[in-house]
């Protein structure tokens, strides 16, 4: 009895230690995750705001078109850049020197002229009128307002010079500078100008790519799993196939990119940089994941259910479609969504098929050239402008939001199907 009690103390101690170890591991994991999130959010939240400058624009008929003109072609050919410059000159009449003027114009984003053009095209009656309009500031001004420019540095090392500083101060005193929600970030494609760049192009590219990927890999993966698990005879061939599927799951993703390049682009002649090819490549990559997860889900359906169905005279096909598949579906969906999340974050194979190109237009379909979110992150992270740093983090946040919502979807789907059964 005494011996048992002695040992008991040791056993309990072991149990406590084990619990502590597990708790420690979880805390450490949480620490890393929160560190990751905090640093990304701290870096990126400012990208959701953008500095705007209020300009009192006189829509000069001489620069655009005569009053009353409505022909869009003539309207769009107007000198809107000149309009912005004229407005700036009007604001700071003391600036006369050519070099100073250039510095002055540099405070406003080149996007301002597009904005003016849009305004006029939308409502040609403004020609000849004067109107206040908020236009985006240049990214350097934006960085200054957000406090990312160190004013203690000598002027030559700064992207904002002393006279520009004084102009900005003048604008601020006039209440002409304001930080506003950065809509452009969600509605624009990529751009060389940080203040004009957005992730919509990359997000649409990712969407189309995943759509193609899902619509190929899910049906094919599930069908392959059902065949292998339920119908295939157990022989050397099926063993070989099984081994190969497991091996494919471990193949580095860049190899799939090379394969896609060779097969889809060089052999089938599909265009480069398009979500169609990206989706096909990612489908190849996620297939093994989906097949393995689906087979595991099929295996976990209790044999008693199959026996019950066969016992009342269901055919093998009915047994599978009526009983086994519905029970295995939650597991299959989980596997699929994990595969999709993997595909969403994949960069390497897409580099091989040219999805790393700089593409300004927002893709309208799977055959339009486009980038995808992770590649966009990679491209921005590589850009020298300070303003792209925060945009990189913001794009990562968007990507994470996508991933989290996909996972939530997986959980929700699983819950829904479980409740039905």
């Amino acid at each position, binding site marked *: 009895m005494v011996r048992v009690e002695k040992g008991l103390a040791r056993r309990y101690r072991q149990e406590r230690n084990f619990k502590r170890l597990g708790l420690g591991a979880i805390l450490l994991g949480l620490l890393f995750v929160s560190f990751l999130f905090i640093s990304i959010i701290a870096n990126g939240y400012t990208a959701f705001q953008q500095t705007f400058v209020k300009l009192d624009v006189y829509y000069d008929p001489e620069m655009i078109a005569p009053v009353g003109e409505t022909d869009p072609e003539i309207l769009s050919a107007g000198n809107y850049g000149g309009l912005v410059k004229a407005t700036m000159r009007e604001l700071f009449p003391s600036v006369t020197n050519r070099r100073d003027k250039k510095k002055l114009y540099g405070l406003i984003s080149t996007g301002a002229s597009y904005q003016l053009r849009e305004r006029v095209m939308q409502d040609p009656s403004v020609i000849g009128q004067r109107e206040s309009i908020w236009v985006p500031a240049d990214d350097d001004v934006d960085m200054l307002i957000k406090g990312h420019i160190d004013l203690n540095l000598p002027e030559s090392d700064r992207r904002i010079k002393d006279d520009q500083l004084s102009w900005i101060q003048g604008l601020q005193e006039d209440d002409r500078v304001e930080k506003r929600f950065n809509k452009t970030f969600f509605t624009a494609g990529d751009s060389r100008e940080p203040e004009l760049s957005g992730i919509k192009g990359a997000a649409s590219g990712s969407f189309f790519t995943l759509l193609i990927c899902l619509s190929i890999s899910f049906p094919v993966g599930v069908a392959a799993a059902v065949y292998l698990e339920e119908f295939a005879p157990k022989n050397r061939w099926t063993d070989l196939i099984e081994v190969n599927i497991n091996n494919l799951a471990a193949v580095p993703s860049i190899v799939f990119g090379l394969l896609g390049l060779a097969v889809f682009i060089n052999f089938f002649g599909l265009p480069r940089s398009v979500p169609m090819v990206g989706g096909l490549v990612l489908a190849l990559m996620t297939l093994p994941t989906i097949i393995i997860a689906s087979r595991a889900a099929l295996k976990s359906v209790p044999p*008693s259910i199959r*026996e*019950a169905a066969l*016992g009342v*005279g269901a055919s093998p096909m009915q047994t599978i479609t*009526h009983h086994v598949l519905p029970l295995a579906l939650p597991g299959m969906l989980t596997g699929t969504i994990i595969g999709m999340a993997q595909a969403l974050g994949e960069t390497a194979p897409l580099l091989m098929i040219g999805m790393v190109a700089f593409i300004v237009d927002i893709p309208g379909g799977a055959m339009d050239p486009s980038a995808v979110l992770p590649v966009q992150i990679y491209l921005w992270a590589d850009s020298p402008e300070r303003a792209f740093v925060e945009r990189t983090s913001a794009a990562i946040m968007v990507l994470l939001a996508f991933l989290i919502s996909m996972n939530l979807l997986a959980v929700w789907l699983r819950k829904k199907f479980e409740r039905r059964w």
Partner: protein
Amino acid sequence: MDDVINQDGTVARELKTGTDAEVDMQSTNESQSRGTVGDIYVDDPRMTCRNVNVYYGDKQAIFDIDLDIGKNQVISMIGPSGCGKSTFLRCLNRMNDTIDVCKVTGQIKMDGQDIYDGALDVVPLRASVGMVFQKPNPFPKSIYDNIAYGPRIHGLSDDKQHLDEIVETSLKKAGLWEEVKDRLDQPGTGLSGGQQQRLCIARAIAVSPEVILMDEPCSALDPIATAKIEELIDELRENYTIAIVTHSMQQAARVSQRTAYFHLGKLIEVGETDQIFTAPKHRLTEDYITGRFG
């Protein structure tokens, strides 16, 4: 098939080794058939098994079994575990087909039709030979859908109302109607073990089978639930032929008219239940009954 069906309905067996099919079975009626003691024949058989051998891969699990299963009778199969009772039972509705390595030889006929005939479709066979398993295995669906599934896939009902009727009568026959009539839309898996097993019996009944096979249907149940099932089996006998595997000799004695004793894959003795339990002829049967091994 070149079997000869004799005047009185018994079937002369097709001998594997020779063409001489007309072995006079009547003369061996009382004596051993391939070592089986007792009368393997009944006057009015629903199923006739002849020369049945079952192999799992290279391993033989069932040896040369001849047995008749009589109409509207309960036949129980007893024997030490691993002796092949389940294997034999599963031959009767070709459930063994689902096991890749399993091979069945010999002849099993139902109402004169060879069920292992290549031309025979196993789907209608399984509808007319229902099965109840050891562990209750209701579908993870509502009670209603559990019962309605069989009739639906076989197209037995004309409309919703007819289907409702089938569900109701099946549940009534299985003695479950009163307990579940108010919650037909609730999951069958939410019932107690005994109710689940009766639900499975009702599910088997719903496709109007002629034979019901039961493989230790009460082994996972408490005594009260067991008593209910036994009562039910007795009632079902009126309309169905039942073959039940059980490890409880009391149960065999209570519910069955005939009893077959299996030992190491062989059918040792078969006879009237009373006779088997009071005056077994074979020493192995006697040893088992008296509890010398088991």
